């Protein structure tokens, strides 16, 4: 039998990654449908109970694909997803992963964090007055201000500086913690 010329049309599967926003949104739909999203809600409750154990210094890592980074840290290191903030399209913007008594945060390297790479450190303060005081002190010491004081992301009131060798520090109140504190105070 003569070879079929149409046999040359074979189209083997070449893996193609779809748009990250689509991939994230579909993953969220799959998780929701499987009822897995309840897991992260549970861990948020756990957090509320451990309010006083929340570290006030946290390393922050910046990624282009925060969703993939989150899964990698869970799978490769066995960290526990403790809190995830997603954009309406399902993209992970910010997440916290628990490691024993500590946390590491991951951030989307976009928008105001577009230039952020590698690690920075987050310092959490309780009140806006404390933030103002530390801001004055850092400015007086000649810190380079990367982001002026104001509201940003999950920090309610914060600023961002670089130390003399270019390490980035995020300093502010943690809006979520503030909400939880107010909630707990209200329940008492």
């Amino acid at each position, binding site marked *: 039998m003569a070879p079929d010329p149409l046999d040359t049309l074979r189209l083997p599967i070449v893996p193609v990654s779809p748009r990250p926003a689509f991939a994230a949104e579909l993953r969220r739909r799959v998780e929701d449908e*499987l009822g897995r999203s309840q897991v992260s809600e549970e861990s948020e409750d756990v957090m509320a109970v451990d309010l006083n154990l929340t570290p006030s210094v946290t390393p922050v890592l910046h990624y282009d694909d925060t969703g993939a980074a989150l899964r990698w840290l869970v799978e490769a290191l066995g960290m526990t997803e403790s809190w995830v903030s997603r954009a309406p399209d399902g993209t992970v913007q910010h997440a916290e992963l628990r490691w024993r008594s500590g946390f590491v945060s991951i951030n989307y390297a976009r928008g105001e964090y577009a230039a952020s790479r590698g690690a920075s450190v987050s310092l959490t303060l309780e009140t806006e007055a404390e933030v103002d005081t530390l801001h004055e002190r850092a400015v007086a010491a000649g810190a380079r201000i990367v982001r002026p004081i104001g509201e940003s992301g999950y920090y309610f009131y914060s600023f961002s500086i670089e130390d003399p060798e270019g390490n980035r520090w995020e300093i502010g109140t943690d809006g979520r913690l503030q909400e939880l504190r107010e909630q707990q105070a209200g329940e008492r």
Partner: protein
Amino acid sequence: MGAREERAGTDPEGMLLALYDQALPQVYGYLLPRCGNASLAEDLTAETFMAAVTAAKDQNVPDLTVAWLVGVARHKLVDHWRRREREERSLGAVRGGRNEVDDPWDDHVNAEQAYAALTRLSPPQRAALALRYLDGLPVAQVAEVIGRSVRATETLLVRARAAFRRAYEESEGNGA
């Protein structure tokens, strides 16, 4: 903790999530060149995974692998072509059905031109040829996926090849 991890390894729902990152580019990579447009490929990719979720929840997955998911994607693609067929029918479009000769040709087929010609066929003809030649499925399996008998599929393939050849040669005639 340990219990949950063990469970994730054996239950289809956990396995589906674990497979997601690996399977997504394969499913999308299968659909994209066959759909020819990204938004349709995204829609069918989403349909594929949501169907997989339903099957996993019903414990109705024989073998949860990337190959199985690509098989689901293939069905979704055929379903899409079926919907197109119904739409075209209701619009009264008539295509194909002219002299159905199937002369073997020995020229070399230009792949890009061939894929373009495929998109101009009627949906059932396109589906049959895509499954048979792009996916390389044997006729019996093509028949299974499109839900026709082997004989009907053979007939469809003969007509589809003739229609394909006309579409291909028209594009050649147009100096493509």
